[in-house]
């Protein structure tokens, strides 16, 4: 058991060191959600009025509404980027080292997913801190309650990223991931607009959004930030994290990547 703990803590420590040493990567990951918050949300504030909806007790400005979605966007980008790198060459060197560990491959992959998820949380809280200064201030206790929710979402999205990278040949570069995974997941969700608004314009779009795992991720975080419990979202996220992780581990095989290249 001790060997497993040593291994896991070593993997987390490595991710932490890389995070600390590559501060520019951390800062650039914050630029995207901050642009959405400071520019997009400010511009759309007047156009998009949000009525009183759960978990909010009152009318809220648009900036408040999109904070959970933007927090999850950080996790979505990190999860997809990290997982893609696990499968293809950029990190293949370090993955080779990881895979020569005598500990089970399932354990190694899950440790890696968890470690990168934990580091992603630092970026999310960095973003939430800036948003706080900007004036979007969820309850302090909500920031704490949201921690496990954010971790679960980070894990779910990393596992989804790994699964998709394993399974889909066309996702060999990040542009493919942007077009076919990140944009659809993000825009067809409740990250930028409440689902009832979507339903007003299109019933089928509404249903696409309603079944999108990212919607449940955003709602889980939104409710947690306001110390409310979103049972369905939690169940969906827990279930999907389990399924995605299982399938991602089962389908992870560097040999497949090599066969694609040579084939």
């Amino acid at each position: 058991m001790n060997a497993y703990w040593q291994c896991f803590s070593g993997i987390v420590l490595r991710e932490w060191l890389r995070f600390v040493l590559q501060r520019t990567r951390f800062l650039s990951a914050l630029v995207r959600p901050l642009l959405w918050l400071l520019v997009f949300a400010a511009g759309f504030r007047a156009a998009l009025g949000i009525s009183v909806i759960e978990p909010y007790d009152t009318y809220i400005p648009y900036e408040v509404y999109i904070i959970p979605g933007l927090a999850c966007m950080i996790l979505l980008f990190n999860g997809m980027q990290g997982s893609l790198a696990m499968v293809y060459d950029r990190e293949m060197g370090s993955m080779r080292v990881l895979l020569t560990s005598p500990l089970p491959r399932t354990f190694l992959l899950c440790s890696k997913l968890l470690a990168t998820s934990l580091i992603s949380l630092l970026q999310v809280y960095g973003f939430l801190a800036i948003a706080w200064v900007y004036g979007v201030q969820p309850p302090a206790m909500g920031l704490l309650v949201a921690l496990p929710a954010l971790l679960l979402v980070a894990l779910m999205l990393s596992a989804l990223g790994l699964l998709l990278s394993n399974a889909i040949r066309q996702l060999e570069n990040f542009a493919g991931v942007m077009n076919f995974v990140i944009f659809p997941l993000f825009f067809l969700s409740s990250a930028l607009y409440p689902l009832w608004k979507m339903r007003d314009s299109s019933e089928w779009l509404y249903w696409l959004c309603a079944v999108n795992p990212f919607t449940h991720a955003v709602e889980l975080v939104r409710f947690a930030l306001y110390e409310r419990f979103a049972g369905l979202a939690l169940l969906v996220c827990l279930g999907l994290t389990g399924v995605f992780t299982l399938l991602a581990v089962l389908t992870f095989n560097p040999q497949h990547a090599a066969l694609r290249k040579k084939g």
Partner: protein
Amino acid sequence: MNALDARAISFAYGARQALRDVSFSLAPGRFAALLGPNGAGKSTLIALLTRLYDLQGGDIHVGGHSLREAPREALRQLGVVFQQSTLDLDLSVEQNLRYHAALHGLSRRETGLRVEAELERQTLGERRREKVRELNGGHRRRVEIARALLHQPRLLLLDEASVGLDPASRLALNQHVRTLCREQGLSVLWTTHLLDEVQADDALMILHQGRLVASGQLDTLLHEQGGDLGGLFARLTRAEVAA
């Protein structure tokens, strides 16, 4: 017990056969050179030996443990230096070593002792806090060897480890590994396409188009077949092309 036994290994990328019925053994404390032109199947063999790829046909035993049946025990016996550097460039020498020790589940105390010993042995003690990025190619390779030996494997596998080094560093690295082999009783499998890295008393294997076309001690092979290593290598690899 042999440090390494490869038994009837075959591997195909789809329709293309990369390895055909490759078998060889490596005795404890021996330095074995695996030679082959580009595309001979060396990288595939390394990927199989390190369990990056799953075996399709045959089996590999490392220190008597089957990669198929007891992969964890087999991997414990194996230290690897990959062709492309797999160090974290922005981490220090010591941080890289500690990460590897963690992957092998070593305790912190044990890690401290072994890191100390390996840094000493590879004469890297003074560089322990330097970032790997600041080291030259030869020293980086030494760090990778130190890392590969941290968990005290019986077999050290070096995949074209001298690629990219200047001639002096290349020679120094080769001699350094031979010293480890002699003094520590370590078995070494050294893959290369550079003939001058092989010595007369080395175990030699020549891989070509996925087949093992020669296997034995170099001086014995030359005695049997005549000529020098360059001639032998050219003859065997050309002959296969013609066939």
